[in-house]
């Protein structure tokens, strides 16, 4: 279908963009920020959204690029998925981001879709929000009043609703480096090649010298109206020593991961009922932890 009509604004700077957004929102206009458009344009075509104007940030080079900043990697909001997954800095220092990004949609979409756009779209079925939660990323946003930082745990407010205030633009995301001794994995279950995740699990896990798990971080994709941390399973995994497979038939990792769905409220849709999603979360978490442990 053809989208409903809208105005198009291409700001020359981030300041410009903030002003345009603030003015439009003050006037009560429904404006949407356009980044890569890979989620927004399908919504417009299906007429699920009727913005009066699009503010296109696609030509602002200051929002694009990856930088190694010591204790964290900074990813500019307009950096494409393709650029993120190829970035040597990302692959070396925050490999979970590279692993999850490589599963986003398909190559053509990854050429256009952006890291920040996926975050600001705040779709709980998107792969990257769960990664941001698991890694405790920090979102850097700017309005005409200045910059502020939003921790990932506060960024995803509700379904398709990020914690961006009026006139605020997402500049980029700080992804903390976790240091040595961590293993990572992103496990995704979907029905067809480039489909959204029915459920996805982002895992970072660190073992102590004795081999037992000292810390686990688990972010869940599509297990509620926002991405969620599997806090109960994280706690249950602490202190677990993965035993050689089949030694006595028990699997302490599986027992801990069986709580991965605790506290979630998974949706029902065409692809899965909530109870099936809960089952997937448990099974996929076990797989992801196993893969992250290597």
């Amino acid at each position: 279908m053809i989208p409903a009509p809208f105005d198009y604004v291409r700001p020359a700077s981030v300041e410009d963009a903030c002003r345009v957004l603030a003015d439009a929102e003050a006037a009560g206009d429904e404006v949407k920020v356009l980044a890569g458009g890979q989620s927004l344009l399908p919504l417009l075509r299906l007429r699920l959204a009727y913005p009066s104007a699009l503010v296109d940030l696609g030509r602002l080079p200051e929002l694009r690029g990856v930088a190694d900043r010591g204790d964290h990697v900074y990813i500019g909001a307009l950096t494409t998925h393709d650029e993120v997954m190829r970035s040597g800095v990302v692959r070396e220092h925050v490999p979970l981001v590279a692993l999850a990004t490589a599963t986003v949609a398909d190559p053509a979409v990854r050429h256009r879709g952006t890291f920040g756009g996926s975050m600001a779209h705040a779709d709980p079925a998107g792969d990257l929000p769960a990664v941001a939660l698991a890694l405790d990323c920090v979102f850097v946003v700017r309005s005409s009043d200045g910059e502020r930082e939003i921790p990932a745990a506060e960024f995803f407010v509700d379904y398709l609703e990020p914690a961006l205030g009026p006139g605020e633009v997402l500049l980029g995301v700080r992804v903390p480096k976790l240091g040595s001794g961590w293993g990572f994995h992103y496990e995704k279950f979907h029905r067809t090649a480039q489909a959204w995740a029915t459920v996805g699990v982002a895992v970072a896990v660190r073992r102590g010298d004795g081999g037992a798990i000292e810390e686990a971080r688990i972010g869940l994709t599509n297990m509620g109206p926002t991405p969620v941390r599997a806090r109960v399973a994280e706690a249950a995994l602490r202190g677990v020593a993965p035993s050689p497979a089949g030694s006595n038939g028990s699997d302490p990792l599986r027992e801990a991961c069986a709580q991965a769905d605790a506290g979630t409220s998974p949706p029902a849709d065409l692809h899965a009922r909530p109870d099936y999603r809960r089952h997937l979360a448990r099974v996929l978490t076990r797989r992801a932890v196993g893969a992250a442990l290597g």
Partner: protein
Amino acid sequence: MPRITVSVDGVTYEEEVEPRLLLVHLLRDRLGKTGTPVGCDTGNCGACTVTLDGRSAKSCSVLAVQADGSEVVTVEGLARDGRWHPMQEAFHAEHALQCGYCTPGMLMAAIDLLRDDPDPSEEAVRRGLEGNLCRCTGYTNIVRAVRRAAAEMSRAPHERMPGAAEDREAAAS
């Protein structure tokens, strides 16, 4: 209305466009480039894939205004001097199409894939083409064709990737 300048298959066009005009509709309805079909219209099927500044993009998921200043290559821009692109030759030779509707997008996505991986395994081809659906399910021959084209293009490295700067230089010399 915004005025845009866009190069399509080597020809520069200046157009006034409504902001909501999709790139695929600019190509088909305004420029007559009907070689690029509209498939699912939801960004899933990949039939409308073109290259935008050298990389594959689904032209139903790009606004024409976003392509301002860019270089687009469609399936119609692949043949040169009356000769098909090696990927087109390979699709023909391997019978890699049935109804043909997905073919323009498959060709563009496959050529993009070879930019990154000039000698892809069967698995890499399947993964690289995951954004392109063939409703006839003719994937086996499509994969075969892409690998045949890869072999062909490695023997004739002067054969080009659409939108690549070195290619334009080669064409100019």
